[in-house]
């Protein structure tokens, strides 16, 4: 979704007009192009594949209902994903009420340092320095993907959503701020906490 925060393009406006006029081929193409990624993104907010599928399907209904009010202040795609994320978050919150607190990933605002303080000397320089990652070892590590996936699941909710959208899905910071309703600074602070924890996982995994 890179570079997709600009206002709607002429193509976006044409697309909306075709949908409003009931063009079935346009709708079918749109569904085929985006349904899988809607479902994948929804899956980061809810706890099962079935629920993610449901949210993605609901999103299409909401897109149709929202067509008349599409103002083109963002691109069609950003607008559509904002609808999806809002629906998915609502579902996620409803689900979380039935999940014990201990199963949640902790506090988004924890101020744990990026690296444990005991790895530094009193003067702030490394006592136990990190090792440069060996590219071959990275490629060969079949455990790394699994370790990162499981660490992602342990992150506090907003940290997980941000790092997944930024680094797994490849969205820009503007898109993530726009869709999740965050300031750029807030997004960066949470991204920093998330990436720092995941870096530790990488260090532990490839250091073995």
């Amino acid at each position, binding site marked *: 979704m890179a570079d997709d925060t600009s206002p709607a393009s002429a193509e976006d406006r044409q697309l909306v007009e075709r949908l409003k006029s*009931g063009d079935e081929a346009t709708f079918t193409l749109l*569904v085929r192009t985006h349904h899988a990624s809607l479902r994948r993104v929804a899956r980061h907010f809810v706890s099962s594949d079935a629920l993610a599928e449901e949210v993605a399907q609901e999103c299409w209904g909401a897109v149709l209902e929202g067509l008349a009010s599409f103002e083109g202040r963002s691109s069609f795609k950003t607008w559509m994903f904002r609808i999806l994320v809002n629906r998915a978050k609502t579902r996620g919150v409803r689900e979380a009420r039935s999940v014990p607190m201990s199963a949640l990933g902790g506090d988004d605002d924890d101020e744990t340092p990026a690296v444990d303080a005991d790895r*530094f000397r009193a003067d702030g*320089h*490394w006592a136990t320095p990190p090792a*440069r*990652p060996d590219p071959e070892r990275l490629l060969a590590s079949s455990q790394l993907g699994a370790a990162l996936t499981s660490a992602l699941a342990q992150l506090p909710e907003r940290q997980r959503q941000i790092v997944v959208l930024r*680094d797994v899905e490849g969205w820009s910071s503007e898109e993530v701020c726009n869709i999740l309703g965050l300031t750029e600074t807030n997004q960066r602070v949470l991204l920093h906490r998330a*990436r*720092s924890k995941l870096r530790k996982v990488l260090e532990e995994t490839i250091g073995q």
Partner: protein
Amino acid sequence: MTCQELTELVTDYVEDKMSLLEKARFLVHLGTCTNCRAYLAQMKATIGALGQLDAVAAPAPAMPADVEAELLARFRNFKR
């Protein structure tokens, strides 16, 4: 800048959100500190590995034909 400070500024650097002065201090430290270069390399490797997660995860199942038909039916019935 100490190594410990650098580990807290690394995201601002990777995201290119530093003032010129801050970036200069960051780069001066990095130029003289092998350990912090290794730290930055680990951070970049982490971001790279996260970008590969989708590729290693099972590919998304194709959309069932009945879902597509159901969505199309909804589109047809949608009152504009």
